[in-house]
């Protein structure tokens, strides 16, 4: 189901999506991340009462944007690692569930005033219902590189996702970072 649209306009952007058949491929060069299609791997598992199918898609999504605030604004860029497992529910006939994992650990920030490096290790795991278009939004903590966890600040990440509801595959993803 579509939820609310992004509230911010700063730095929306880049969408490049990597085509990856496995998570192992994610460790490849960032150059691979600028391709424009997404590949999915599908696995099936059988329970006693039915056969549940999981269609897994892995992608690298280029993302950037600026978080405003004190002591300085921070410009982020990098690639978010996105795993989407679309899981069917033949037992109850309910719409498939999307188990989304969004990892920002490869996204880094630079202080606009000082040039200081900022990092986040944030990983978000969300359950969503499968829809053709979904907007996912979450806050994430970041801190100066080497800083204490207690000194973290907060940014906002937003992703617009497209799914083929017939093949259960993720077909498109864009991301942006802004201020919460």
């Amino acid at each position, binding site marked *: 189901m579509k*939820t609310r649209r992004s509230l911010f306009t700063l730095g929306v952007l880049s969408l490049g999506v990597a085509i990856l058949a496995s998570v192992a491929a994610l460790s490849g060069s960032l150059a691979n991340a600028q391709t424009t299609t997404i590949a999915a791997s599908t696995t099936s598992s059988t329970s*006693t*009462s039915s056969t549940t199918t999981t269609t897994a898609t892995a992608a690298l999504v280029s993302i950037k944007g600026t978080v405003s605030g004190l002591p300085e604004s921070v410009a982020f860029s990098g690639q978010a690692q996105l795993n989407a497992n679309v*899981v069917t529910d*033949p037992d109850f006939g309910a719409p498939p569930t999307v188990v989304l*994992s969004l990892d920002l650990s490869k996204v880094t920030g630079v202080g606009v005033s000082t040039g200081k490096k900022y990092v986040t290790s944030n990983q978000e795991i969300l359950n969503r219902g499968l829809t053709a278009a979904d907007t996912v939004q979450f806050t994430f903590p970041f801190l100066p590189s080497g800083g204490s966890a207690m000194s*973290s600040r*907060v940014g906002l990440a937003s992703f617009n996702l497209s799914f083929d509801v017939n093949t259960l595959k993720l077909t498109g993803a864009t991301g942006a970072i802004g201020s919460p």
Partner: protein
Amino acid sequence: MFFLPKKTSKLRLREAENARRNRWEVLKALADGQVTRRELIKWGIFTAGGLLAWKHGLNPFVKSAYAASNIPTGLPPSPLFGVQAFTTAMPRFDVLARNPNPFTFLNPSPTAESNQTQQLLNTALEGVVAGDTGPIEGRPPGPIWAHQGFNVFPPRIAIEVTQEGAKTNTVYNPQVASNFNSGIDPAAPIPLKFHPGLPTQGPNAVWTFNGTIPPKLAIARYAEPILFRHHNRLPFDVRQNGGFGRHTISTHEHNGHHGAENDGFTGAFFFPGQFYDYHWPIVLAGFRTINTAATDPKAATPDDSGGKINVPGDWRETMSTHWFHDHMFSFTSQNVYKGNAAMFNIYSALDRGNEAINDGVNLRLPSGTLKSFGNLEYDVNLMLAEKAWDANGQLAMDIFDFDGFLGDQMTVNLTYKPFFEVERRKYRFRILNASVSRFFKIALSDGSTMIQIANDGNLLPVPVPLTQLDEQGIAERYDIVIDFSRYPVGAKVHMVNLAEHQDGKKTSKDLSLADALSGNSADPCVGRFLEFRIVRNPATPDVSQVPAVMIPNPDLSAVPVARTRTFEFGRGANQTTNDPVTSFFGPWGIKTDGGSMLAADFGRVSAAPRFGTREIWTLKNGGGGWDHPIHIHFEEGQVLARDGKASNVPAWEKGRKDVYRLRPGGSVTITMQFRDWGGMFMEHCHNTVHEDNAMLLRWEIDDNGAPFLRPLPTPIPTPQGVTFRAPDDILPTAL
């Protein structure tokens, strides 16, 4: 419970109320023994799979004739009697008294073997006739169920509690001054209400520890063994239950590293009029083989004067936040929901509950400074549980929702949407999901950062800053630190639930913070549920810390893997046994090592790891339409992989755990050791409706027949005493 839309018509509300009454009549007849489950199947009220038949006016899954949406017919919304959110203070837990002389304080004095002194039985108990006698202690008799290590670890603290119907609390002990408890006067009587503006609960509506609220907190420290004596003072007549709940109980110290006789085994339940002595030695795992001379300074317990005393065992196995709750076979969900749930803080030299002592070992987590250990001023237990109540405000439960039960009113520490006053400094919150079937996902209303420091009973290797916690399954504990110094005095910030349910099988969707705060969710438990009021600056500087390194995982690289096992959790279970006491029938089950999907029988041995070994277990979700938080009793596990990959394990699961959420269609691979103690334990879904219907198995530590029998005989409790019989079944891959 399923949710009816906010604009539900009166006609539909009446229909829902009628359906509820119909189901309760069936339940009452079942509970009273007027009908059997087999007869209900014959009449078409239950299906052969144990499900409520697909009948309108009876089954909540059947859409109402008047339905305007896809939300199935449910109970009427719980009335609020005009009560508003955030208008009453959240009470701190009620700390259970600790007596330092267990052998003289407790009468009769505790014994290693079960005390089989006979007493005259009440004839209201099932199967009892006038003149019958039975033992005063419900623990199974004999050497197999004797307290292991009772002489080596004799109890030094007695905690004595009752389980009984709701009554007013006149002895509340929060162990903090009133200004650390939002101004609550501990001397004022506390009637059992979920809010001062809501009705008082009747004695058969709520059954809690000591019959009172706030929920209870037990306090322990390593090397100080506890004798926990639990008296069952519930009604003798099984029918006197207010519509749900069973008067027989078994108390599980979740996830205690104790002998099985103290684990709250599901088949070791005891009756009204009896007590059960649980011996909790509070030892570090590995104490028989690691650091046996107690020379490691990090393996230590706090003394009473700011120092510490070394103890044997592996300091990397130090545990902190436990809870204890009922584990009655097939009735855990009803009894826990009815109030049989409490928390248990365990203190160590590492996590001693004193933030000022700087001895090079103490992690100095937020707590307080007044006492040598166990300060609670800035260390706050939170028990989250959503409830439902009927038109009279009495606690209600629909036990026919075999896929899970959801309430529609959020409580924290059994108080409806309360507020809590805090100072401008760091606090630790030990958050327990004490729901029946609901998952939570917690954020702060301003989206700011929380630091997760522990998962389940265990401090993490490193703290994890998060703005949204992961989904928290039933029985999981998340310890977090919130620094309120970032807010001005007078500010308010709320805890918010982002996880939306449509039924009890799993979350339907994790919402964004903005969506959760919008008030548009059909799930009434989404949104704000706890208000923090920042009321003052601290009187003294905050000296607490969140260190960059806490407790690394035990290094198991030198411990060979004895074997691997797989467990698949799914539907469509078969029941291969028909023992009326030990087996149960329901739609859920567990497939072990590729065998049949089996419904629960605590007389069946499904796995028997060898004593002193390490194994790798893979827990698989057999479906995509539900989630299962799987609990494995006894010793902590390390998560090796999710969905087959180590890289899928998130930072907050890189410590030790005892509950493993599988996620829809997912799997979790863990490693565990089986050491120190013996006996029979359990593995089950902690969505307790799934557990009760019948997603539970028994495993036991196989000591090859020395000193115990192989396999262990199954206890069969009756009011007249516990008998034993051979296991109903031993799976071919168990041993």
